[in-house]
């Protein structure tokens, strides 16, 4: 690359392709779009944050991702994290649960309770959340393909314990469109998948207005190879797809938009990430305002969980990941996130140990208690560099969105596999650059040690007996429950799906009768079909 004119230094570009100058001045801010878009925290366009006082009032929620084995083991880890000061829960489910299979399904063999908690029926939710005050600790369910069923279980469990659903807070990830791009726990074809997400939004708007039914994930798209600009642009296009869908079913933007949330990834260049979030917050507010005309300013809020960033962590010299995560947490705090979760240093090897999970939690607590991150809102505002980059990132995100919309929008692009193709090509290019050393990665392609130390990683013990015990409970419930009632409830779900009605009420009735994840998924598959993955190269 040609060096910038008049300087003796090498040219530098950030990951999003913007050229970085050696020095920024007020002129750069002005020529990139000016100071006008900065505004005040808590006011449109929310560049500086969605709340006036941000962390002065309340620090971000600390919500480490956790779950493994049976609900008993997961409950134990939940209590451990809460006892150490964690303020929210983020539930990891095993793969059979995520793709809608019961623990005794032949396809679930070897996977039960492995990467998350096994769930078959409402009983598992009752056990997992025992002793946890759902008003004190908000719960986030990382579930997508089978989200409607698992949300129904959460509501049924809360109701059974006497919580008013109308007052219940919490979040479901429930962003199926990104599952087709990365993460891969889709079940149904694209269109009925969107309809199901719509059902949950409509249901929550009416019955659980404080619950966040969807967390739109740029995170996994970035992990799949997208750059920071694409991460935001694709997430916004996906959020708009859900909004357009439910507006088409009669909701008003203010009925639900304030409960939409986002999930973003942090790794790479610090300033690029901070600018990404400030630009994203401003652009999202403008999009909602100009395209959906809300009355309630909260409808324009970009509420988010930001952290991670798995893609930045390495299997080499794993203790370096503790340092990386601390920087990611700093970025997240400087970016005005509502909730933070950090990948643990041992995650490239195993389910995080208690020790690794505690270090991640302490990383966030140190920022809150020792580093002054909560003292003042948006401390990087006014920096020539950050404001210039914020202006430029906003323009780039906008341009990527316009281009995608001109090509027919994100839904058709995903259905045809085009987005998947773009990001996987970029992931390949990135890997190549990592291997050639063009992208520097400490401990990977530079600063390697002659004799790499054996990693000080404690492997999570996977207990083979977990599966047998989970299946035993499932069988016991199947024999004890009122099977005629279950059959009737499943019939209603099928009929509602066939008629295109909202399936949430009938799914809730079915889970209350202890219908299983697999039975309910099967009902929906009969009506909606299964997704066929385009595998293009």
């Amino acid at each position, binding site marked *: 690359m040609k060096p910038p004119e008049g300087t003796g230094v090498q040219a530098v570009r950030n990951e999003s392709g913007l050229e970085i100058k050696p020095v920024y001045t007020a002129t750069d801010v002005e020529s990139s779009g000016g100071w006008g878009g900065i505004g005040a925290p808590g006011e449109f366009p929310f560049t500086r944050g969605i709340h006036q006082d941000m962390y002065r009032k309340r620090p971000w929620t600390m919500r480490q991702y956790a779950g493994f084995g049976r609900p008993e083991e997961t409950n134990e880890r939940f209590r451990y994290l809460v006892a150490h000061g964690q303020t929210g829960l983020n539930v990891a489910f095993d793969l059979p649960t995520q793709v809608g299979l019961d623990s005794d399904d032949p396809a679930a063999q070897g996977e039960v309770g492995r990467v998350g908690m096994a769930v078959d029926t409402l009983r598992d939710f009752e056990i997992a959340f025992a002793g946890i005050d759902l008003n004190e600790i908000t719960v986030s369910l990382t579930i997508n393909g089978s989200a409607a069923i698992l949300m129904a279980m959460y509501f049924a469990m809360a109701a059974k314990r006497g919580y008013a659903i109308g007052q219940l807070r919490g979040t479901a990830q429930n962003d199926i469109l990104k599952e087709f791009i990365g993460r891969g726990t*889709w079940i149904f074809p694209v269109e009925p998948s969107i309809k199901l997400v719509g059902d949950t939004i409509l249901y929550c708007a009416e019955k659980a207005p404080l619950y966040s039914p969807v967390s739109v994930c740029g995170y996994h798209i970035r992990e799949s190879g997208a750059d920071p600009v694409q991460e935001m642009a694709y997430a916004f296009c996906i959020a708009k797809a859900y909004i357009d869908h439910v507006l088409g079913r009669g909701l008003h933007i203010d009925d639900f938009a304030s409960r939409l949330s986002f999930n973003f990834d942090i790794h790479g260049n610090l300033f690029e990430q901070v600018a990404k979030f400030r630009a994203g917050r401003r652009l999202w507010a403008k999009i909602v305002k100009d395209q959906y005309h809300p009355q309630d300013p909260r409808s324009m809020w970009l509420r988010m969980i930001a952290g991670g960033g798995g893609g930045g962590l390495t299997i080499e010299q794993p203790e370096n990941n503790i340092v990386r995560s601390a920087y990611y947490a700093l970025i997240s705090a400087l970016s005005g996130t509502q909730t933070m979760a950090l990948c643990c240093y041992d995650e490239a090897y195993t389910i995080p140990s208690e020790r690794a999970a505690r270090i991640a939690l302490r990383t966030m607590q140190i920022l809150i208690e020792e580093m002054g991150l909560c003292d003042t809102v948006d401390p990087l505002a006014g920096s020539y560099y950050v404001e210039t980059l914020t202006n430029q990132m906003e323009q780039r995100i906008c341009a990527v969105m316009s281009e995608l919309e001109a090509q027919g929008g994100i839904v058709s692009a995903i259905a045809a596999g085009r987005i998947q193709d773009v990001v996987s090509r970029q992931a390949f290019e990135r890997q190549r650059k990592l291997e050639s050393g063009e992208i520097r990665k400490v401990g990977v392609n530079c600063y390697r040690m002659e004799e790499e130390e054996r990693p000080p990683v404690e492997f999570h013990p996977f207990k083979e007996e977990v599966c047998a015990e989970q299946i035993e409970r499932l069988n016991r419930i199947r024999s004890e429950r009122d099977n005629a009632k279950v059959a009737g409830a499943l019939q209603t779900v099928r009929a509602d799906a066939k008629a295109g009605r909202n399936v949430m009420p009938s799914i809730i009735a079915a889970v209350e009768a202890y219908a299983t994840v697999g039975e309910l998924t099967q009902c929906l598959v009969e009506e909606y079909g299964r997704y066929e993955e385009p595998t293009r*190269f």
Partner: protein
Amino acid sequence: MMASDKKVRILFAKPGLDGHDVGAKVVVRSLMEAGFDVIYTGLRKTPEEIVRRARAERVDVLGLSILSGSHIPICRRVKTLLQEQELEDILWLVGGNIPDQDHEELKKLGVDGVFSVGTPLQSIIDFIRARVQSGALHYYDGRAS
């Protein structure tokens, strides 16, 4: 024709329920660029589907990408099926999140090469090429199905 000039056919598969396919797709692309003939199955294929496909496509190499930790039970099943289908000579590679302590057990099951997270792409290519050059690769493409 030199053995090394013959196009090696590879079936690259994602068995089990794991949906993390970034690495799998990166490896597929790099094998294609290296000149191999690669078929990618996509996600969530059962061992039965994978071995059936390996036979139908007459591939010389079978690559599995597994990140969920369920590599041992999956590979046990694949081994049985490869035996049943008389495909034990296939060059069988496994990659993904495979702890060091499991490499030995996978080798005992008949896996020829284990490539954990962090393996440079070139090492996979070199491994296959070395097998081709040493004449150890059993070609399936000429045989009747």
